[in-house]
C-alpha cells in the first residue's frame, strides 16, 4: 500500500493540471477535451461496444504478430549465438532491419496484404523479430565460457546442451528482451491500425481525429497506455521465477 501512494499522488496532480489547463483555456475546448468530457465519452464508447471490440482486435493482432516473431527469433538467436561465423555474416543485415522503422514497411504491408489483420501481423512481426534475435544472440554470445566447460565435463551435448545450459543461461536476459520488444509491438500496433485496418485502438484514434472527437481520442489513449502497462506487469511476473532470480540479483 505504501508503494502505491506516491504514484497515486502524482496521478492526482497530473489530473489537476489537465483540468486547470482546460479551465484557463490555454487551448480551445475542441483541441483539449476536459476530464469530464473524456469520462462521458468513455461511457458512450462502452455502450456502443466499440471500445471493447477495438481492444480485442488490437490485442489479437499484437498477440499473433509477436508470437510468431518470438517463436522464430528465440531459436534462431540461440543458434546464432553459438555460431560466430554465421553470426558475423548476418549481423549487419539484422542490425539494418532493426534500425529501419517498421512504419517504413507500411506501403508494402498494404500492397501485399491489403486492409485487415494481415498487414498488422506483418508490421508487428517486422518490428519485433529483429531486436529479439539480436537480444538473444548477444545474450548467448556473452554466456561465460566456464558454463560450457562444465557442461562438457558433465556430458551435456546437442539438444540437452541447448535446453539445459544455453537456454537457462540466457533466460533472465530473454525475459527483459521480451518486455522491451513487447513494448515496441504495442507502440507499433497503433500506427499500423491507423492505416492498415478498419478497427482496433489505432483506428479508433484515427476515426476520432477525422470526426474532431478528441475526447474519444483521449479515451483511446488512456486505454492503450493502461493495457500496455498491464501486459508488462504480467511479463514482469516472469522475473520472479526462482530459476531466473540469479540474473537480476548480482
Amino acid at each position, binding site marked *: 500500500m505504501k508503494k502505491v501512494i506516491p504514484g497515486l499522488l502524482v496521478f492526482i496532480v497530473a489530473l489537476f493540471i489537465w483540468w486547470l489547463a482546460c479551465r484557463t483555456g490555454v487551448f480551445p475546448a475542441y483541441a483539449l477535451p476536459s476530464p469530464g468530457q473524456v469520462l462521458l465519452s468513455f461511457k458512450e464508447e462502452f455502450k456502443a461496444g466499440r471500445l471493447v471490440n477495438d481492444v480485442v482486435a488490437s490485442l489479437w493482432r499484437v498477440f499473433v504478430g509477436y508470437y510468431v516473431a518470438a517463436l522464430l527469433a528465440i531459436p534462431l538467436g540461440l543458434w546464432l549465438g553459438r555460431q560466430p561465423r554465421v553470426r558475423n555474416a548476418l549481423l549487419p543485415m539484422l542490425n539494418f532491419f532493426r534500425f529501419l522503422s517498421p512504419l517504413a514497411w507500411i506501403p508494402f504491408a498494404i500492397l501485399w496484404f491489403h486492409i485487415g489483420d494481415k498487414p498488422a501481423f506483418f508490421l508487428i512481426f517486422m518490428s519485433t523479430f529483429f531486436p529479439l534475435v539480436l537480444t538473444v544472440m548477444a545474450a548467448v554470445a556473452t554466456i561465460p565460457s566456464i558454463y560450457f566447460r562444465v557442461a562438457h565435463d558433465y556430458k551435456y551435448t546437442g539438444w540437452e546442451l541447448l535446453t539445459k545450459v544455453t537456454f537457462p*543461461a540466457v533466460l533472465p536476459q530473454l525475459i527483459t528482451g521480451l518486455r522491451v520488444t513487447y513494448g515496441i509491438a504495442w507502440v507499433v500496433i497503433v500506427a499500423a491500425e491507423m492505416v492498415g485496418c478498419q478497427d482496433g485502438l489505432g483506428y479508433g484514434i484515427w476515426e476520432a481525429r477525422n470526426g474532431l472527437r478528441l475526447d474519444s481520442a483521449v479515451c483511446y489513449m488512456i486505454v492503450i497506455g493502461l493495457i500496455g502497462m498491464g501486459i508488462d506487469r504480467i511479463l514482469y511476473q516472469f522475473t520472479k521465477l526462482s530459476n531466473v532470480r540469479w540474473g537480476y540479483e*548480482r
Partner: protein
Amino acid sequence: MSVGVMKDSRTTGSLLLEKVAHGYNGLQVVHEVNLAVQPGELVVLVGPSGCGKTTLLNLLSGFLTPVSGTVRTEGLVRTVYQQDGLFPWLTVGENIGMGLRGVKDKGRQERELRELLELIHLGQFRDHYPHQLSGGMRQRVELARVVAGDSDILLMDEPFSALDYQTRIRMRQELVQLLEKRPRTVVFVTHDIEEAVVLADRVLVLSQRPTRIVRELVIQAPRPRNPTDDVVVGATRVILEELGLQVHR
C-alpha cells in the same frame, strides 16, 4: 558393486604426462613436465601466480592439446574451476545432481544425493540457489558435485583461494573427509604452501614460467593433518627453502 555403497575404494583413475610442453603463440608456459599420478593419489601442485598451473590442468583434462609430449588419462575427469562453476539457474540439489547424471537407477540417485548433502552439511539447503549461499557453501557444493557418481579423477584449480583463512582450513578438512568416504585420484592446484602440505600425498613445486617441476616432496603422515603438525611444518620449511622464501637468522 553393492547398492547404497558409493564408489568403493578401488579407485581407478590415473594420469600420465610425458615430456609435456606448452605455450601460447610464442610464450613458453610449460617446459617439459613429466608426471605420473597413481590411482587414489592426491598430488598437489604449488607454484607462483601465472606460472602455468591452470594451463597444466587444462592439458590434463584434455581441454588443451600440448605443443609436444603426450598426456594420458584413464577414467572420468571432472574439474573444479578457478572461477565459479555452479550453474546459477539450478538449486544446490540440482547442481549436485549433475554429477549423478550417469547413475541410471533413480533410487540410488536420490540416496546418493542425500548422502552427499549430509556430507557437506548442506542438507537444509537443497532447494537454495547458488546466489543465496556463502562462498564457502558454494565451494562445498562444487566438491560434492565432482565426487558425485562415477568420477575417477578430480582436477581442482585453487578451489579455496577466494575464501578467508578460517573457512579455508575448514574446507580442507571437509575435502579430506569427502575423499575418505569417496576416494578419488586428485590433482590439486594451489599457491598456498600450507594448504599443499596439509592435503598432499605428494607436493610438486613448480618454478616461474616457463614452468617445470623443481621439487618433489612425498608426505606420508596420515590425514587429517593440522598446519601445526611437525611433518607439516617441516615440509613447509623445505618448500620455502626451495622457493628462496625462508629467512635465515
